[in-house]
């Protein structure tokens, strides 16, 4: 399962007749109301949309009270009775959804750190907290150079502080408040900087292995800039690995 989903939705947006003069704007306004709120139908938080009006026929809800003018319904079956004469515009919209579920790994920025809590913000709008009990024992709370940090006892360079990007496990999510309860118990969680370096080390080992197997370095060069950077990183991290 992915944290992000791309869904195509068939929607009917009901607009007040006063908005008939500028339907696209009214549609944008209605779709805008979906943003950054959890929607049960889509099972996620709508992050963006791209809607196109489908067809030119609008469904009109006439201004009749449900208890009256039954005749009208009979004469024109397409018109449904309603108190307000809203008209429905059919849309096909592509929606980008954010849908974190328990046991997924997500990333966010540490905004505040204390002994009892780490506050994280994901994608700039969704808050998350990781309580003391959900931080693995490997991490110790310290005050380093006047700054509160959680530092790993086994990996000296693995440090979480304010401003760090962290990867953590989703325990639960309060959908109304867009609040995630997270965990740093699994070993593949923690500061992204360190975790990625760890992955780089792995890839470096793989590259070296490949180099050993093939004497031609052309294959690596052919992979472009990314690989150059990778090699540069690997040069730096190889020293670290020796230390480790």
């Amino acid at each position, binding site marked *: 399962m992915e944290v992000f989903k791309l869904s195509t939705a068939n929607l009917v947006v009901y607009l007040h007749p006063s908005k008939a003069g500028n339907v696209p704007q009214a549609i944008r306004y209605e779709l805008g109301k979906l943003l*950054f709120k959890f929607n049960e139908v889509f099972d996620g938080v709508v992050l963006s949309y791209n809607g196109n009006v489908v067809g030119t026929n609008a469904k009109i809800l006439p201004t009749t009270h449900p208890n009256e003018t039954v005749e009208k319904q009979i004469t024109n079956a397409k018109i449904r009775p309603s108190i307000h004469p809203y008209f429905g515009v059919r849309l096909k919209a592509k929606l980008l959804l954010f849908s974190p579920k328990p046991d997924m790994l997500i990333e966010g920025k540490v*905004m*505040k750190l*204390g*002994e*009892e*809590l780490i*506050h994280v*913000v994901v994608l*700039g*709008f*969704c*808050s998350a*907290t990781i*309580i*003391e009990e959900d931080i693995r024992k490997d991490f110790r709370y310290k005050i380093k150079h006047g700054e509160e940090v959680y530092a790993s006892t086994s990996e000296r360079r693995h440090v979480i502080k304010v401003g760090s990007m962290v990867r953590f496990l989703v325990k639960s999510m*309060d959908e*109304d*408040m*867009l*609040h995630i*309860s997270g965990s740093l118990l699994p070993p593949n969680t923690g500061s992204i900087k360190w975790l990625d370096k760890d992955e780089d080390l792995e890839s470096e080992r793989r590259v070296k292995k490949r180099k050993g197997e093939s004497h031609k370095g052309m294959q690596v060069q052919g992979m472009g800039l990314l690989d150059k950077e990778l090699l540069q990183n690997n040069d730096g991290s190889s020293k670290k690995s020796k230390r480790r």
Partner: protein
Amino acid sequence: MGMEIENNKMEVIKEEEDSEVTDSEMVRFLRNALQEVGETEFESSTHHYSDLVAVFGNQDGRDTDHVALLVASSRALSRAVTYIDIDRHNSLLSNIFRMSIWNFGENVMDALIDLIKALAASSGKYVEDCLEMLVRNFKPPQNLLNFVSQPHGIAKKEKVQDRVHKALKDIAELMPVSLLYLNGIVVQRMPRMSSKNDFPRKIKDDLQLSEIYVESMLKLERGVLGRFMGNVMLSAVVYRLVELDVEIEWDEILQDDPSKGIFDMEIEDTDEAADYNDDGEVCLKAGFGLQKMGADAFADRLDSLMVLTCEHIKSRADEGHLHEVFDTLLLSFKKSILDTHKSKFAQFVMFYACSLDPERCGVRFAVTLADTFVRAGESPTTRMSAVAYLASYLSRARFLPSTLVVSMLKRLVDWCAKYYCKFQDVEEENINPHVHRVFYSGCQAVMYVLCYRMRMMVDVPHLKSLLLDMPLESIFRNSLDPLKVCLPSIVNEFLRQAKAARLFTVSEKFFFNDLLESDLSKTYGGIERLDTFFPFDPCLLRNCDSFIRPHFLYWSIVNKTYDDDGDDNGNSDEDVNEDEGFVDGDGECFHDGDRNLDELDYEVDLDEFENSMNKMSITPRKSLKHMMPARIRPSTSPESL
């Protein structure tokens, strides 16, 4: 129970002192106290937990022991927030959220604010309650209301506001979703408006609370969070201005001399309007001249709120955000002010905002009003109101470039000419002024603007040619006969100036010196009497006027096309800043070469003045309550009489 709790508290403190309890131990102690509470707190609440609840239930900031305990408890609890459960610790939470930080010193304020921040950020459950608590602290508790107006109180107000706003910002950083709730909470929590039937004391208190609250709202908009909160705050403030405005009725504004005509209404006699006490301070006879004390309090507060709003606009303009603020104001004007029946004061915030950037804001306001007037989809009342605003604005705003005034005038004249073409076959006897009320309001607006600006236009050759090209004669002399329908005082003044400027041949039959206000005018004005609505007549609010005055064109300094010397109005009441001159947007003088406004004669010749009154004032007394009255406050400027 109370004594028992106090003793218990003392024991806790003693324990702390004796054994030098560390912060960590205190946190652990509170965690245990919170964990000991059973599923339903009332059945199995522990001794320690009850003490904790009682600590936050006491709002006495004078008891030093209690203050020490409160600081220690708050600090420790902010590190144990994850142990608080919304169901099990309900009484503790409700006591915390009921606290008013105004009751305490700075150390308690800081500790409590930290606790609220920690609670808000701990999980999503408490965000709304925390925001509500902070927003409630925008205003002081009732018992501190008098204290807040004293110097110490003002200092305290700033301390509280700084902390509350900082807390809101910090919460928004940790819980971005809080911004979605904040707007709604701030608007909902606005102090309610008291009715004029309430006791004067209550009205005064409510209005003072309202003012302090609005101050915080504007501070919020100015702050870091402002750009995330849209235009809600300023719109709500403008709406509150309108609410206060409508509480003051025209009937409650004293008329110092109901025999004066529209153009004489600005003339005031300061000696009559004010008394002076022993210290030389001005004592108004009835405050703002409002007959009812309740209404006077409303005017007083409205004045303060207007000043706050103008200061806010100015500070936003200084920061380079005037256009964003202006967008909000324009929207609020259309939604709240334009359709308010004869708004008296609230519209001056627009006037002030326009004055800060005449080239963009000033022009946009005029164009919006003109658009509203010519738009067929709008209701006739809205269109008449819009054109009244436009006429008054073009006449009174001295910061407007002359080219804009002329182009707007041309737009009005063209619309009137086009309208007339559709009805030129109507016979004069069959005219129903009510049916053509929008047309008449347009004609009256053209005349009103020309009363103020004709001289400026005829003195500049290219503007004069534009004026002469306008089909003025055809719109004023036709079967719809606006000269007979519009307000006679305006028609008279217009014709007098038109005659002097040789704009067109004016027949003597069009002068209505001996006529009372025509019934036709009343008919076209409708029951709302929009024919007598001049929204930007001089501002009656003393403090707000200081923002408006430098940008305001008073009738007393308007150059007329006719020779003023013979029957000068002598209206020297307006202490116009004489150094400023009268310069349009292009740096071009509005007035004739050698003759400067500074040289205008402000001497009062009472005989001539009365004579002039008799000539110009033909409006019956009973209708004058609908017009902007003479300025009823004493002018404190040294130039005034």
